[in-house]
């Protein structure tokens, strides 16, 4: 048994703690398997369907249980598209995990709901939506009512 650093296909140099004993035959099979897998020869015919966004993200987050996950794992073995998607999501997840949590914009608390929604609907429709105008009217109406109540109080005093 030789002491050979493992996983030496030019992609990863593990930490020293990961250095393990490797049988030369295992090293050979690792190389053969690498070429076999990357040649796409193992690709099976998928049934034309892909995993939905909900299940894909749950798989990446590790929140599917065994009952649900077996069929997903089988699909990921056969479907390069879904597998590649999960890989990219993992990379993204890791990249973001190392960043500080997103800071909510400093002015968020001061934004009016109507402003935010107007922005959303203008992005979607290219113009503000009627519902938002209605909301704005409600806000204005509310403000006017509050002002009127205040005036009444002053008058009474």
């Amino acid at each position: 048994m030789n002491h050979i650093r493992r996983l030496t296909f030019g992609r990863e140099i593990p930490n020293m703690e990961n250095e393990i004993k490797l049988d030369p035959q295992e090293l050979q099979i690792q190389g053969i398997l690498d070429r076999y897998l990357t040649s796409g020869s193992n690709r099976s015919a998928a049934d034309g369907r892909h995993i939905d966004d909900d299940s894909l993200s749950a798989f990446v987050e590790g929140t599917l249980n065994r009952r649900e996950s077996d069929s997903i794992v089988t699909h990921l073995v056969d479907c390069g598209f879904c597998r590649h998607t999960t890989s990219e999501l993992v990379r993204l997840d890791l990249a973001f995990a190392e960043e500080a949590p997103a800071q909510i914009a400093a002015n968020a608390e001061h934004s009016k709901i109507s402003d935010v929604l107007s922005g959303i609907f203008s992005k979607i429709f290219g113009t503000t939506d009627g519902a938002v105008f209605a909301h704005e009217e409600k806000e204005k109406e509310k403000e006017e009512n509050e002002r009127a109540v205040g005036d009444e109080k002053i008058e009474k005093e």
Partner: protein
Amino acid sequence: MNDALQTHCDSVIGQMFERCHENAPNFGVTSDCFSRSLNGTLERFKKSSSDDLAEKDVTDFLGQIQADDLFMAIACANGNERAWWDFDQQHRAYMERVARHLARTEMDATDIVDAVYEQLYGTRIVDGERVSKFATYSGRGSIRGWLRTVIWHSLVDRHRAGHDEVSLDEMTENVGEGGAHANFAEKPSGGDETMVDQIARDRYRKATVTAIQNAFNTLEDHEKLILLYYHVENLKLREISRLVESEDSPLRAWFQRRSATRENNPAGRIHESTVMRWLEKCYAKVLQSFRSQLISESGLSEAEIAICTQLATQDLAGNSFFNNLNVSRSAAEVSN
């Protein structure tokens, strides 16, 4: 689902609703609406296996649901303004960061976020009702994880729209960081082929290819998947560790069920070295199966097996060994 189990479900869902409603009383989500969504998810969960569901299964399953995220998604799907405002405040910045990370230009990122908002709101009307993408979120994972996936697919769709002639595989290999390295169809090397007679060489090659194919196929799906992540998707050990970080990760649970270390540290962090050990076990299984295939199926001797592996190893440099196996992409994947 029998009556007793349905009653149990209704009770758990009722408690979940109360909690969510207390947290977001202005979202306008009704108990019926919330219950309908969760019962639909439970129904899919039930169909995912032929095993009967017990009360504990239902309780555990519902306990995993990201209830507050689901509550917000239902409210947004219904067009509730307060929910949309909360969603926008909590998640827009994150969505923009994700889009910027994945897209090539700032303009692309902005376009993608706009397109996703459009999907989330739903501009398509079916049977008089607006179809919101939020309606497809079930709370199985976090809403941010789901948004990330929606953004990724939106990016892929966008890329496909501009590259009709490119297969889905080729295209996904070019999107994101993981530009796959599986460019196998390289020119064969002009290596010295005089060492072994060509006929014998072909025979050994054929035997080796068949043996590695069969050896890989003897693995269980979880083992195949981890090998595919490492070799084909080029995920690093650290990234695979991340994938199995959750204690509930199906891959982690599967490998740990087969590992004695689980008893010592069932909930511990999965280090890169652990993933490496999992891979090592897979290689050992493949090697054993590979050798027994060559002996039993091809009738090769130890000396001939050595020639086979030597040939394959030599050919690695020229990348020619598996060229004849380079099958066309699956029609199903290309057409999607």
